[in-house]
């Protein structure tokens, strides 16, 4: 099941992004919201999803497996999808760069994903397997440093965004589209649990809906510096994901508990 959910997160969610961005409303939203939606659809497996799943009482081991697989598949899926759907994901050469040949930059993107996602994940796994005591000692401080750095990144971005209110009011249609994408991701994730939906549905929905904003921001800094408001749009997507998925999953968890109590 983990493989099915990871594949869905890497392929079905980007296809949902293609459908939305090519739909009748796709052309009506600002370039920043468009590119943010495309990037978030492309980048699966938010590193924080495992902790969120654990906090919400879901199966965090399954969440971790999905993330591990999705991080590996993303090395191939991100450059491939950008190549096959250039209008949705690449703004006619945006991700692949304006001058470099597609294959070269496809490899560059794959290497970027490998460097910042797969390599540290494998390093952590190897340490956990070979030096469990050291892994125990490092885990907590490393996670604290990561949380601090993430918070610092958010603070820098928010403090740099003096135009937040104006941006929000002029991008209401884009926000609505983002909300539709988040709900679509939750539904895809729920459906991917298949017959295990009652037990694992909320876990698979959450890991599918939570996208890797860190990777999306990295791509935004690398390739989308000319898109006004792009980083802010990515942050808004993260905020919308939290705002929508939290109540939906609480409700689903409550229904599951009721069912268990009824049995």
């Amino acid at each position, binding site marked *: 099941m983990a*493989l099915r959910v990871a594949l869905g997160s890497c392929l079905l969610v980007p296809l949902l992004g293609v459908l939305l961005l090519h739909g009748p409303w796709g052309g009506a939203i600002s370039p920043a919201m468009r590119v943010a939606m495309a990037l978030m659809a492309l980048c699966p497996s938010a*590193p924080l999803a495992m902790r969120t799943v654990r906090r919400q009482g879901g199966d965090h081991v399954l969440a971790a497996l999905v993330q591990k697989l999705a991080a590996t598949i993303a090395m191939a899926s991100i450059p491939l999808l950008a190549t096959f759907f250039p209008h949705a994901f690449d703004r006619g050469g945006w991700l692949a760069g304006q001058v470099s040949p597609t294959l070269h930059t496809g490899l560059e993107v794959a290497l970027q994903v490998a460097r910042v996602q797969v390599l540290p994940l494998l390093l*952590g796994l190897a340490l*956990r397997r070979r030096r469990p005591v050291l892994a125990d000692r490092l885990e907590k401080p490393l996670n604290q440093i*990561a949380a601090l750095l993430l918070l610092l*990144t958010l603070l820098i971005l928010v403090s740099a965004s003096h135009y937040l209110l104006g941006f929000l009011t002029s991008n209401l249609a884009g926000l609505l589209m983002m909300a539709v994408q988040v709900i679509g991701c939750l539904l895809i994730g729920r459906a991917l649990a298949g017959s295990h939906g009652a037990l694992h549905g909320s876990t698979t929905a959450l890991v599918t809906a939570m996208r890797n904003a860190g990777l999306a921001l990295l791509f935004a*800094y690398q390739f989308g510096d000319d898109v006004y408001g792009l980083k802010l749009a990515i942050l808004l997507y993260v905020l919308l994901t939290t705002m929508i998925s939290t109540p939906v999953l609480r409700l689903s968890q409550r229904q599951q508990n009721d069912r268990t109590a009824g049995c």
Partner: protein
Amino acid sequence: MNLAIRLFAAVTLFITMLGLGLGLPRDSLQLWLR
């Protein structure tokens, strides 16, 4: 400035993923395809 922010974002992501890997159960490799 842009390079510094990119580096900062990359380091943040690297540390986050390293922490994730460290936090996974020891036998999780065997559960990959369950």
